[in-house]
């Protein structure tokens, strides 16, 4: 059971990391990175590290995804200003 969960979350992590590299849309790539963090946090929980899982879920999947999105919006604003 635990092995299956570890294998499934590992596969999803690798798949979303590859998706983040190959997706053309930057927003979709950011969401893929967030998905990878979410499954990493599940993996930490399964491997009996609940405090690391909490950090990964709150910072990796939550805050840093939004920070990337804010940064993307701001850089787009600059490009629009320059044109």
């Amino acid at each position, binding site marked *: 059971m635990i092995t299956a969960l570890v294998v499934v979350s590992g596969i999803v992590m690798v798949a979303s990391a590859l998706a983040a590299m190959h997706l053309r849309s930057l927003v979709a790539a950011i969401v893929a990175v967030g998905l990878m963090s979410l499954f990493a946090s599940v993996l930490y929980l399964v491997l009996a590290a609940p405090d690391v899982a909490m*950090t990964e879920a709150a910072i990796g999947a939550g805050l840093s995804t939004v920070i990337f999105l804010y940064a993307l919006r701001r850089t787009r604003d600059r490009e629009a200003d320059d044109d």
Partner: protein
Amino acid sequence: MIKRIIAFHLVAAAALLLWGIVDGRVPPGSLGGVGRDYVERTPGELGAANVVTGIVVTWRGLDTLGEVTVLFLAAAGVALVLRRREGAAENAAAPEAPRRDSSEILETGSAFLVPAIVMFGVYIFLNGHLTPGGGFQGGAVVASAVLLLFLVHPGYRTAHRALEAVESVSGALYVAAGLLGLLLAGGFLDNRFLPPGVFGTILSAGAIPVIYTLIGLKVGAELAGILDSLRGGGE
């Protein structure tokens, strides 16, 4: 094409190396060395039920102080780069059109959720010495409540001064707690300058709850400040 072939061979070599470590490895049945020493000494000497917290705040407390400093520098850097540019842009550019308000469902839902999330974050850092979690985790959860406020109310302004005051005061008090440990107990960031209390209750483990509360407040204020600087004002 050659780049891809090289990359593939590098990945294959790394996989081969890792396989050599993983293949045939049997996890040890009992703790050995430093690990056993920590597990045996943390409950008795520090009075902390959560051994991880005992290690993070006391045995390896200097590392935690360094991590908090790194986060402080990151927040200061973001504020320095983004706020100044924004001040210049605000003077030059005309005010943008006001954004659409959030829907009724989102506003009501966030009004219910934000206090609960803040309370959960405070619970995590107050109980850091008893249950998994601690200052960093609790602070991040509090900051995610602030993030929800930003998402629901686009025009919401934080009190920058108050955030900065919380951040500086809790950082200074953290170092002061470390110095008190140096003066009154065994060394820098030693938690035993406060009475150890009853093992397993909320007021136990000496100064660990105090230090984790300070870390929680500092991390929460810093992450909220980073989000606020990145979000930009009046957009």
